[in-house]
């Protein structure tokens, strides 16, 4: 056992380049396999959403054709042709052909045209809405994760103290409140009853009349509008980060190497960061990756409550309008984001935890 453990070290020194080459080849093939898996996942989800979306009751094109026939007295063929030209979507085509068209479009980066807002491509709509979600949820995730980790460590260091008890109660309370409920509570109590801020003015991603540009004014306006969604995200997610980090830190504090670090006379700050924090945060990274993936999806309900124009808000509209191409586009983007985040996490985890670096290639 001890011989095999010592092997990579023993072999590394004399023939470094050769060993490195072999190791990096293994690593590359591991990465390659992970990427292949990720691409397959995206394809499967794209296929599923394509068919599932079409199982939804109601079909906007049929409705539009019917309206044209009644109002303009057109024949079905005329109306259908007009609709086809407008929507680039033909419900009369067999599903398989539609599916192949869709895949072909995807390969060319074409997500099709929106049905809800005729004449605009799904791609351009996504480009308009996605940044706001990325911005608000991304910032919220960073704040929530960093703050949660710091508070969790503070709780673990002072466990059974006042801070620990108070934060534990607050943490589990926040963790158990659904985010839309908190959003509604903020609007109703803080916004309307206490009148702390003007909820209707805070709607949207930025104030009407303000032009997007790189300036302090625009940035502060954006922050003004994103403030409430960010607050809601942070408050509803920080509790779980805090509690998970606390238990992980308590476990790490009991590790021998922390006692040894103390015996070595290291300064408290060095022990807290490189010995306790670094090891305690490792198990949280996979959760962070999943959370980062869902950043793109935003939150339908929060964005709806605050009327914040992000992807969640868009998805809600797309479902209501039966906007198939738009829904497919949104689901595809969310899927790619989640898969990509997990892929990055998997590849990055080896960087963070050296014990996985070598084992990863073999697994």
């Amino acid at each position, binding site marked *: *056992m*001890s*011989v095999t*453990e*010592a092997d*990579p*070290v*023993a072999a*590394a*020194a004399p023939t470094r380049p050769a060993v490195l080459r072999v190791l990096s080849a293994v690593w590359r093939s591991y990465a390659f396999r992970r990427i292949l898996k990720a691409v397959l996942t995206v394809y499967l989800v794209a296929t599923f959403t394509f068919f599932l979306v079409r199982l939804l009751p109601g079909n906007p094109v049929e409705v539009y054709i019917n309206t044209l026939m009644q109002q303009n007295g057109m024949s079905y063929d005329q109306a259908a042709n007009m609709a086809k030209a407008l929507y680039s979507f033909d419900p009369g085509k067999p599903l398989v052909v539609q599916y192949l068209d869709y895949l072909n479009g995807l390969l060319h980066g074409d997500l099709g045209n929106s049905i809800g807002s005729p004449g605009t491509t799904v791609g351009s709509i996504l480009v308009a809405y996605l940044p706001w979600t990325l911005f608000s949820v991304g910032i919220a995730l960073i704040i929530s994760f960093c703050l949660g980790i710091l508070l969790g460590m503070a709780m673990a260091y002072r466990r059974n103290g006042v801070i620990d008890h108070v934060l534990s109660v607050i943490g589990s309370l926040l963790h158990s409140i659904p985010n839309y409920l908190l959003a509604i509570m903020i609007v109703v109590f803080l916004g309307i009853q206490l009148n702390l801020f003007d909820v209707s003015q805070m709607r949207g991603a930025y104030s009407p009349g303000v032009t997007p540009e790189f300036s302090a004014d625009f940035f502060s306006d954006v922050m003004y509008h994103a403030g409430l969604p960010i607050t809601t995200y942070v408050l509803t997610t920080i509790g779980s980060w805090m509690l998970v980090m606390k238990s992980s830190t308590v476990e790490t504090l009991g*590790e*021998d*190497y922390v*006692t*040894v*670090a*103390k*015996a*070595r*006379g*290291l*300064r408290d700050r*060095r022990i807290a960061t*490189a*010995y306790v924090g*670094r*090891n305690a945060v*490792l198990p949280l990274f996979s959760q962070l990756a999943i959370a980062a993936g869902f950043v793109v999806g935003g939150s339908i309900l929060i964005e709806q409550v605050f009327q914040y124009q992000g992807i969640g808000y868009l998805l809600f509209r797309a479902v209501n309008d039966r906007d198939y191409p738009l829904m497919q586009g949104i689901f595809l983007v969310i899927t790619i984001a989640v898969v990509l985040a997990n892929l990055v996490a998997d590849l990055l985890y080896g960087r*963070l*935890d*050296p*014990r996985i670096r070598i084992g990863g290639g073999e697994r």
Partner: protein
Amino acid sequence: MTDEPVLAVRDLVVEYRTPAGPVRAVRGASFDLYEGESLALVGESGCGKTTLGLALLRLLPRLGSTPHGEVRYRRADGSTVDLLTMRKEQLRRFRWHEAAMVFQGAMNALNPVLRVQDQMYDTIRAHRSMSASAARKRCHEVLDMVRLEPRRVMPSYPHELSGGMRQRVLIAMALLLSPRVLVLDEPTTALDILTQRSIVDVLQELRRELGFAMVFVTHDLALAAELADRVATMYAGRIVELGDSRDVFAAPRHPYTAGLIRAVPPAVGEATEISSIPGGPPSLAALPPGCPFSVRCGLSAEVGDGDGPAGVCVQADPELTRTGERHEVACHYSDRVEFTREVVVDGV
């Protein structure tokens, strides 16, 4: 060398808080450690020897405390200081610089996410301002001392090293700042025989060259006989016998020590009878009255004529008293302890 001990432990008590109330794991231990001397703490699992070792550097876990006693350390300049009353920053500087500890390599004693070299640099940087190249040189020196190849070990992560290599790294790390006292906690436990051998050789050699004093905690009597100048036997949180290792192993004066020695087969010479001590160590939360060993003690039963332990053994816990020039024992009938081993097979 002077006559003053470098480390003087007086009536040290260690308590653990438990849901059922405080439990004393060490109940008034006293001993001196002289410069360059090696003292072994031996005893069964749970007798408080590791707790005592940790208490010497004030490394007890959160629930442990030292309500009583003192651990007096004498610096090289002759001034003394009580470790138990040291302030936080003072204690931090004291640790490793004056007294270092070698932990079990089998334990998770090294941070798994930092390279060996970074952990060694951390240790140096916490105590001295040293240039990177000087620190590197010092690391090379101590790794050479434990017969490891610095170029291979320094850039490795702990999981890339074998158990024996990790143990050597821990010893090397303890030597980084040339401490005057070294506390070793089961330094060879969980290693195979050959690795144990090489660790013992390294320790012998280092002690000869560097002349530090050491306290080592072990349940391995053979190791104690080989490495220790003096031996302290612990039972139920107390030192029950303390003396030169030659005296203690040749003629133990405490029935417990005698029992321990009888339980180990001799490595050389005639094969002798091996016998165990009946019963198990008492719970520290509920000690029997009087001498805690009396319930398992054959001698006491003999004196008491078969009606259980002798009266005095149940009434009073014996104090550690001097029986020889450098030999102390805590037993009411220490003069009646006979130590002979019956030879089973001749000249193996």
